[in-house]
């Protein structure tokens, strides 16, 4: 059953679609992983991950955007998250990405975040986008650079604490 009104976007290898409950196990596993979760938030127990999963669905209903599930085009299985995130207290709408264990190193986050950014600029009419990244998250910073984003400032995030704000190129600079 669909839980959101998220569109289904495709890129070369991937599909970006709305979250479904069948994606929850993979998400909870990611969020419990002490190696991978900390760039995204604290390590979560399963019930805490469930709350965040419900938040993301509500986020789609409130804003009309949120985190897509990155799915493999063939299997439709969840291999990560990418989308636009903007809860109250966030400095600005954020382009975010996460790739689950076993799917890293294949350019999946780059491909998905590029597609989500294209959607936010082209379909939602965003004029700018940022990404919030921990200074220690060198892999995400490398990806932000590959996406053309530049470091803007360090600030105190209401959820993450000390955090870096990276700004993406404007829509006109990408065409």
């Amino acid at each position, binding site marked *: *059953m*669909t*839980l*959101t*009104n998220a569109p289904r976007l495709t890129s070369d290898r991937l599909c970006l679609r709305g979250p479904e*409950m069948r994606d929850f196990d993979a998400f909870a596993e990611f969020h419990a992983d002490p190696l991978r979760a900390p760039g995204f938030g604290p390590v979560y*127990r*399963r*019930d805490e*991950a*469930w*709350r*965040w*999963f*419900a*938040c*993301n*669905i*509500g*986020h789609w*209903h*409130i804003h009309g955007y949120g985190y897509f599930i990155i799915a493999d085009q063939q299997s439709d299985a969840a291999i990560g998250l990418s989308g636009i995130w903007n*809860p*109250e*207290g*966030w400095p600005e709408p954020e382009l975010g990405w996460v790739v689950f264990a076993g799917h890293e190193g294949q350019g999946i986050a780059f491909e998905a975040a590029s597609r989500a950014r294209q959607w936010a600029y082209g379909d939602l009419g965003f004029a700018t986008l940022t990404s919030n990244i921990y200074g220690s998250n060198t892999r995400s910073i490398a990806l932000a650079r590959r996406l053309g984003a530049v470091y803007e400032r360090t600030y105190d995030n*209401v*959820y993450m604490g000390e955090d870096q704000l990276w700004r993406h190129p404007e829509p006109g600079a990408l065409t």
Partner: protein
Amino acid sequence: MTAIPVLHTKRLELRAPEAVDYPDFKATFSSYRARFMGGPLNAYEAWMLYAAEIGHWQIRGFGMWMVHLRDTGDTVGMAGGWFPAKWPEREIAWIIWPDRAGKGFALEATSRVRHHFYQDKGWETAVSYIDPKNLDSIRLAERLGAQKDHDAATVDGSDACYRHPAPSALKDSQIAHGIEMEIQNYINPLFKPKGWALD
């Protein structure tokens, strides 16, 4: 997606929580009123909880309604079902904004949602998890006919489980008539405590 039904009582209309109602929710959940519900919350936490309330409807097919006054449309609180991960059983929950308390809205709304869950959704039992210090909510649970279930699992051991009467116990029973009479004949109490409520 789950279509959220609209429920009515004599004075109230229960509707889906909408983005436009969020400021009312935030005002209460960032106040002392929310102390028995994990609060007070900061703005981020309040927003995330509100989003989770909406997501809960989609995941579970039921959830918490926003309670409006039929005559003005103002919101006065929320009531409905709550069953996030880790909850042992499906809960009937309620919260009334502090400046709307003491008018019988919680009883009227909660009785209506319980009827919906029992009659329309086929629930055979329901519980409410209440902080043992939350005397107002314990009193409401008792007015609804719920009784403390000492053998039932609780959320985290610091709360008490109140079990609602079974559907059969609410059909033409003394407790059902009593609740109905209290709702239908609700008037402002003649004698009210002076001063402000603590919250």
